[in-house]
């Protein structure tokens, strides 16, 4: 069964360092998302990406964040200068197309980011 894969599964970094989280969405999907979940809390929307550009972003997704689809398969989230409060599980998700019968999001297993 096709799945969304994410690397790394866990990253520990020092405050102020840059971090890149990587995702490989399901191959025929067109919409890509990043969500984050601080431990024990809700799943928060960060950004959606379609047709090689950001289609929507939340207030959390400030200038410290950026996304890229560098090579047609990977979808990356970069945090330029990490803060303690960026510590969370980051989930990548993908979806086929708006007109499909379901808007189901397929989530990866997540990348846990710990900022010290």
């Amino acid at each position: 069964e096709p799945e969304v894969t994410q690397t790394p599964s866990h990253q520990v970094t020092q405050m102020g360092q840059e971090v890149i989280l990587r995702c490989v969405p399901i191959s025929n999907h067109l919409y890509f998302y990043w969500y984050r979940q601080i431990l024990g809390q809700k799943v928060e929307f960060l950004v959606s990406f379609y047709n090689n550009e950001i289609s929507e972003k939340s207030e959390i997704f400030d200038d410290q964040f950026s996304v890229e689809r560098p090579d047609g398969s990977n979808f990356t989230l970069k945090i330029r200068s990490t803060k303690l409060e960026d510590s969370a599980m980051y989930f990548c998700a993908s979806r086929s197309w708006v007109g499909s019968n379901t808007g189901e999001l397929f989530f990866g297993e997540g990348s846990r980011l710990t900022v010290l």
Partner: protein
Amino acid sequence: GQQVMQIPQYQHVQEGEDFTTYCNSSTTLSNIQWYKQRPGGHPVFLIQLVKSGEVKKQKRLTFQFGEAKKNSSLHITATQTTDVGTYFCAGQRQAGTALIFGKGTTLSVSS
């Protein structure tokens, strides 16, 4: 901005008891989805509701979408230990926009 509220935050039941979680949106929704997240896992899609007043069933799970398309519920009949996890509702203002998640209801079941 759009907010999705969910209650209760936690629920503990004895195996065999029923369980219900409720979801309310501050705005009218195009559709609502439900996801389950097992401890240590990632959200997994359960169902999508699109029509006003829609009711869908999956075995022991019953999902409802309110007439005004602003609220929804998930009811589990005769819970089992395999039902443990956090159940999230997630709403979209319109198809293609961001899916906004509620805070989730964490269900624990004792045998």
